[in-house]
């Protein structure tokens, strides 16, 4: 059996799920990059 419709999950659910993990991760990465820039100062 192959999935009848790979895009059956609504796009908003995918955006919500990825945003739920992506936003905190992006915030953490931004904080780390800001600290890492001190190496080049």
């Amino acid at each position, binding site marked *: 059996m*192959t*999935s009848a*419709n790979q895009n059956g*999950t609504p796009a908003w659910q995918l955006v919500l799920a990825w945003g739920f993990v992506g936003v905190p*991760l992006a915030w953490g990465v931004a904080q780390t*990059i800001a600290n890492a820039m*001190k190496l080049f100062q």
Partner: protein
Amino acid sequence: MTTMVQAQSSGGLFGFLDRSRTIAKPGFSRWMVPPAALCVHLCIGQAYAFSVFNLPMTKLIGITQSAPNDWNIPELGWIFSVGIFVLGFSAAIFGRWVEEGGPRRAMFTAALCWAGGFLISAIGVYVHNLWVIYFGYGLVGGCGLGIGYISPVSTLIKWFPDRPGMATGMAIMGFGGGAFIASPLSVWLMSRFSTATHVGVAETFIVMGVIYLVFMMVGAFLVRVPAPDWKPEGYTPPVVEQKLITRSDVYVYDALRTPQFWCIWIILCVNVTAGIGVIGQASAMSQEMFPGKVTAIAAAGFVGLMSLFNMAGRFFWASTSDYIGRKNTYFVFMVLGFFLYCAVPTTGSLGSVAAFVLCFLVIISMYGGGFATVPAYLRDMFGTRYVGAIHGLLITAWSMAGIFGPVLVNYIREYNITHGVPKAQAYNVTMYIMAGLFVIGFVANLLIRAVDKRFHMVPDREKALVTAAAAGRERTDRQAARREVR
């Protein structure tokens, strides 16, 4: 254990955790599964940031400076060590239970253990008893670490048979990235809760425990397993059998009897030993090898940059392994690692900070890549059925490396300094030892061949036929024996 899982599978209060209740309906997008895995790995990745609590926890009584009854850094260092040790062993012990019980049950349990560990530790801080924290964060939280770490691995591999390296790389990247969130969050929370008479560690533990519980539960409820005969749209398994990618499965404890398991164990142990040793000493090493050139602030920036490469390497190398193969990826790690470690002392003698930083950024990306690529390597060798459990057993290599790595770096440095070697050259011997470790890893990787067929599990249907045939033969024999007696 199987009986226990079957008993639990009958429904009841926790019936919603059953594997059968997590089977995806047709049309479910497999791209919902990586965020579910990340929900768990981003939380347990906090372990890498535990050191932000060390200094505040040395001032719980003295507040502004350590009082005589306050804990010291070596005592506090054991919290992380116990946690990582328990991670390895809980992953090994509970691996089969995780595999058979399904990812939701495992993630749910991991969430309770991880959050529970924080709440118990908050009590430990409140009553100022370090043993309560060893028990809470180290033992209970460590079980959450181990179960959580392996929980989404086999599920992701089943959802992404076409890109197993990328799929597990995404989840394990989350473990590397968890510290990015936890570190600033912990510092911010402690600053909110601290007063003139109070450090605010206990409250921070409570808030973080609650946040992690919610976050991980979301992951547990999002996760789905594919239907047994599901495959991605348009995907056809390779017709030509690849020598190093099996289509059969190996039972979890049979994997221990194969040389392939122990070769991969050595490879992981070597790769982690080489990386973990320098992670802990990166700040001091950069300042001591380049006195006057690298300040403490710049060294902190270097450590931050290393964390980024550690995380990015997990995704990059694991995804690359889908194209060049797992064995070749580890060959790259071993060969490149060997030359880079040999080059580090030269960068010091040349006084080239840029070359030093570049060497370590590549090394640390391969350290992360080693972690992230190994589940796919195991899947290639032992099949998908027990890959999570076998991965759990393999994690013991991490526990061992967690002891070897720092010991190698710290003790050899101390030995050199006490024997009159200048600080700038105190790490040279260690670097050559690390390079030597990669030679061992190279040989172990070279020895890897496809797993012998005698270790392959008999497919269920075939097994049923064999059992039925054996039962039939037994019946005929008994009837013949009765006839002879008559």
